[in-house]
C-alpha cells in the first residue's frame, strides 16, 4: 500500500478527530489572546512606531555588556527603557538598541556618545499622537484587507460555506501568529502589522488550492483530492517557511525580523488550519451535499416508481 493510500485510509477514519483537535488547539490560542487582553487591557504590546517614543541604534567599536548599559542608561529616565543586543547577519555583535517611550532623547544620546566607543548612532523618534494614529489606521487597513480578501474569495467560488471556511482559516492563522508574538513578548511595530496584512493574502493561498481541488476536480474521492492538494500545498508552505525562517535569522534589521517572524508563525499555523481544519470542514460539507443529492435522487426514483 502506498503512502497515499495509507494516508487516505487514515484520514477517512480520523478526519473528524483531526478537525476537532485543530479547533480545540486554535480555541486555546484564541482564549489566550482574550485572557491577555483582559489582563493587560491591550491586544498586544505596541512598539515605538505605534505608541510614540524613540529607538536609538548604536554601533560600537568596542562592545559592552547590554545589561550594564540598561542599568546605566535606565537611570536617566523613569519612562519605559529597554536595551537589547544588535547583531549582523553573520551573527557578529555590532552594538545595542535602545527602545524607549522617551520623546526627547538628546541627554541619552550625549551620554551614550561620552560613555561608549561609538561608531554610529541612529535615532528614530515618533510622536505619541502619530503613533496612535498609525495604530488606528493599521487596524482599519487590516479590516479593509480582510473584507476585500473575503469578497475576492466569495466572488471566485460563489459558494457560501467553503468560502467562509477559507476565511476562517486565515483568521485562525493570524490568531496563532498573534498569540505567539504575545508569548514571545515582542513589541509590534507598524511593519509588524503590515506582516499580519500580508498573512491575510498569503495564508489563503493553500486554502484556495485545497478548495479548488476538492470542489472542482473530477477525479478521485474527497480524501484523495485532499491528499493531492496537500502534497502540493505542504511544499508551498514549507518553502515559504524556509525563506521567512532564514530571513529572520539572517537579517540584523528589526523591521525585517518582525515581518519574517509573524509570517513564519502564520505559515506554521497554516499547516493544521488548512489540512485538518479546512479539509475536515470541506469533507463534511461535500459529504452532506452528496447525501442530500442521493436523497433527492431516491425521492425522484420513488416518485417515478409511484407515478
Amino acid at each position, binding site marked *: 500500500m502506498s503512502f497515499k493510500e495509507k494516508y487516505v485510509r487514515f484520514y477517512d477514519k480520523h478526519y473528524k478527530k483531526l478537525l476537532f483537535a485543530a479547533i480545540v488547539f486554535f480555541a486555546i490560542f484564541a482564549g489566550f489572546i482574550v485572557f491577555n487582553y483582559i489582563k493587560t487591557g491591550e491586544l498586544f504590546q505596541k512598539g515605538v512606531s505605534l505608541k510614540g517614543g524613540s529607538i536609538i541604534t548604536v*554601533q560600537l567599536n568596542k562592545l559592552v555588556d547590554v545589561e550594564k548599559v540598561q542599568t546605566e542608561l535606565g537611570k536617566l529616565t523613569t519612562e519605559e527603557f529597554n536595551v537589547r543586543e544588535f547583531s*549582523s547577519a*553573520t551573527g557578529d555583535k555590532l552594538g545595542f538598541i535602545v527602545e524607549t517611550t522617551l520623546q526627547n532623547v538628546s541627554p541619552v544620546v550625549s551620554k551614550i556618545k561620552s560613555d561608549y566607543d561609538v*561608531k*554610529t548612532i*541612529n*535615532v*528614530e523618534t*515618533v*510622536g505619541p499622537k*502619530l503613533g496612535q*494614529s*498609525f495604530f488606528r*489606521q*493599521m487596524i*482599519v*487597513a*487590516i479590516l*479593509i*484587507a*480582510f473584507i*476585500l*480578501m473575503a*469578497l*475576492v*474569495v466569495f466572488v*471566485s*467560488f460563489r459558494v457560501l460555506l467553503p468560502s467562509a471556511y477559507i476565511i476562517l482559516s486565515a483568521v485562525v492563522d493570524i490568531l496563532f501568529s498573534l498569540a505567539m508574538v504575545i508569548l514571545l513578548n515582542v513589541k509590534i511595530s*507598524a511593519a509588524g502589522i*503590515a506582516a499580519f*496584512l*500580508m498573512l491575510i*493574502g*498569503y495564508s489563503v*493561498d493553500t486554502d*484556495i*488550492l485545497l478548495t*479548488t481541488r476538492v470542489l*472542482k476536480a473530477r*477525479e*478521485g474521492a474527497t480524501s484523495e483530492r485532499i491528499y*493531492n492538494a496537500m*502534497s*502540493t500545498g505542504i*511544499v*508551498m508552505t*514549507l*518553502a*515559504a517557511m*524556509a*525563506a521567512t*525562517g*532564514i530571513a529572520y535569522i*539572517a*537579517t*540584523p*534589521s528589526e*523591521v525585517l525580523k518582525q*515581518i*519574517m517572524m509573524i509570517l513564519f508563525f502564520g505559515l506554521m499555523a497554516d499547516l493544521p488550519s488548512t489540512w485538518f481544519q479546512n479539509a475536515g470542514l470541506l469533507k463534511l460539507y461535500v459529504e452532506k451535499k452528496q447525501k442530500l443529492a442521493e436523497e433527492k435522487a431516491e425521492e425522484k426514483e420513488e416518485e417515478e416508481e409511484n407515478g
Partner: protein
Amino acid sequence: MVNLGILKSGRIIFLLIVLALALVAIYPALWNEGVAIKGVVKDGPAYEAGIAQPKATSAPMTREVIKSINNIPIRNMEDYAAALKTLAVNTTAQLKTNKKTYRIVPQYKFDYVTLENESTYENRTTQLYNKTLNMSVNITEQVKVPKRVKVYDTSVVDLGLSVYNAPKSNIKMGLDLQGGTRALLEPAYELSQEQFDNLISVLEERINVYGIGDVSILPTKDLEGKQYIKIEIAGVTEEDVKNFIVSQGKFEAKIGNATVFAGGTDITYVCKSSECSGISYQEPCGKTADGKQWVCRFRFSITIKPEAAQRQAEATKNLDVISMGGQQYLSQKIDFYLDDVLVDSLNIGADLKGRAATDIEISGSGAGLTQAEAINDALNNMKRLQTILITGSLPVKLNIVQIDTISPTLGKEFTRSTLILAIVASIAVILVVFIKYREIRIVIPIALTLFAEIIIILGVAALIGWNIDLPSIAGIIVAVGTGVDDQIVITDETLRKEVAILSWKERFKRAFFIIMTAYATTVASLVPLLFAGAGMLKGFAITSIIGVSVGVFITRPAYAALIERILKEKRQ
C-alpha cells in the same frame, strides 16, 4: 538537454524580452569607478565651471561621474576627499568627468542659509476672459519663493559639489540602506489645499537652493485625512533638516545693536511696482574685478511704521556720513538678521541720518555669469527681500512628528546582510523544492524563474525610480515566495497522474484559477497599506504588488510553457 524548441513559445519569448528590458533598466555596471555628482551648489565653483545640476528624478547611471582631479584618479569618496585637500583657493584645477573636462576654480566652502520661512513672490501670468470688456485680459498672480544668503567657511576649500560613490546600477536604495534623514512633518493646523501646495513649493525651493540632489518631498494624507509632508534626504543629518528646512524664522533689521524693524509687523508697505523698485540705473550692471562675473544692483522703497521710523532716527543720528563710489552713505550699515544670524548688510543713504523717515530705500545686488543672469539674480534677491519684509514668516509652523536618521555605515551593513539573506533564502527555497521533486529538470526552471522574477521586479523599480528600502526587500521576498508557490501548483497540476481525464489545457486552466484567485486575494490585502500610516509602508505594498503581478502575468505563463515541454519530453 532542453530542446531549443522551447524558444518558439510566445510566452517564453515574452519573458525573455521583458527580462532584457529589465536588465537595460537596471543597467548593471559593477566595474564603475569614480564619484557621481549628486548636487551642484548654486553659485559655487562647479556651477561657475558649467557643471549642470542633475535632476533629482534622473536615473542614477545617467549622473555625471568625476574620474580625475588634476590628473589624480578618483575611484571613490576617499580619493575625492584626498584630492580636495590638494586644492588651493583661486587656483584653477582640471576636473575630468565621464562626459567632459572642466576648468574649475576652488573657493572656500559656503552654505546657503535659507531665510527661515521668509518667502517672496514671483509673477505668474494667466489669461482670463473678461465679460464686461469682451476681451482676454492677463491676470498676474504672485507665487512664493524663499530667500537665501551665502555664509563662507574659510577653513575648507570646496568645489561646491555634493558627490557620492559612482552608482553601479540604476537601482536606487532607500534611506535605510544608504544612510540619511527622513522626517515626517505635520503643519501646526490644517491648511487649505492651496496653502498646502504653497508650503510644499517653498520647501522644495529651500532644498533646491541647499544644493543637494537626492531629496524627496512627499505630501501625503493618511486614512484619517491628516496632512503630512514626508521629506527624505540622503546623506544629510537630522540637524540640517531641522535648521535648514523645517524651522521657522525670525527676521530683524538692526543698525549697530538697535533693532530698527522686524519682518512683518513693523512694515506697512513695500513697493513692488516698477516706479519704485527694480534694477538700479544709477549704478549700472558691471563686471567684477576679476572680470568673471556680472553684478547688478537693485533698489526698492518701503514704508515703515512711525514707531519704527523713530527707532531708526535714534539709531542713525550719531552716525558719520561716508562717501563710497560717488554715493553718500552712513558709516554703519543696516544688518538683516535671521534667527540671530547675520544674513545681509545694506548701505543706508546719508540723507536718512537722524530723520524719522517712514519711507526708506533699500538696495542690494545680484550676480551671475552673464549680464542677463546677474539681472535675474538681482531681481530674485529683491523679490525675496521684499517678501521677508512683508510677510515676516511663513503662516504655519511645521512640527516634526517623526524623524529618523540612519548612518551610511549602518546602511552598508544592512545592504550586505540583505544580499546574504536573499541568496540564502533562495537556496533554502530551492532546496525544499528539490527535496520534493528530486528532479533537476524541474528545480532548474523553478530557480531560473525565481531569479528572472527578482530581476524584473528590480527592473520595474529602477524604471519608475522607486527606492528599494528594507520594507521593499521584505516585499520582494514575499512576492518571490508566492511565485515559487505558484510554480509548485503548476508543476503538480502538470505532473498529476490522471492525464487521460483532463487535457493539458484544462489542467492549466485549473492551475491558473488557483493562481489568479490567490493573486487577487494578495493584492486585495495589500491595497489598504498604500494609504495607511502616511505611506510609511508603501514600499512593502508596492514591491509586493509589482512582484506578484510580474509573477502572474509574465514569469508564470512562461514557466508553465517550459515545464509542459520538459515533462512531455520526459514522458516520451
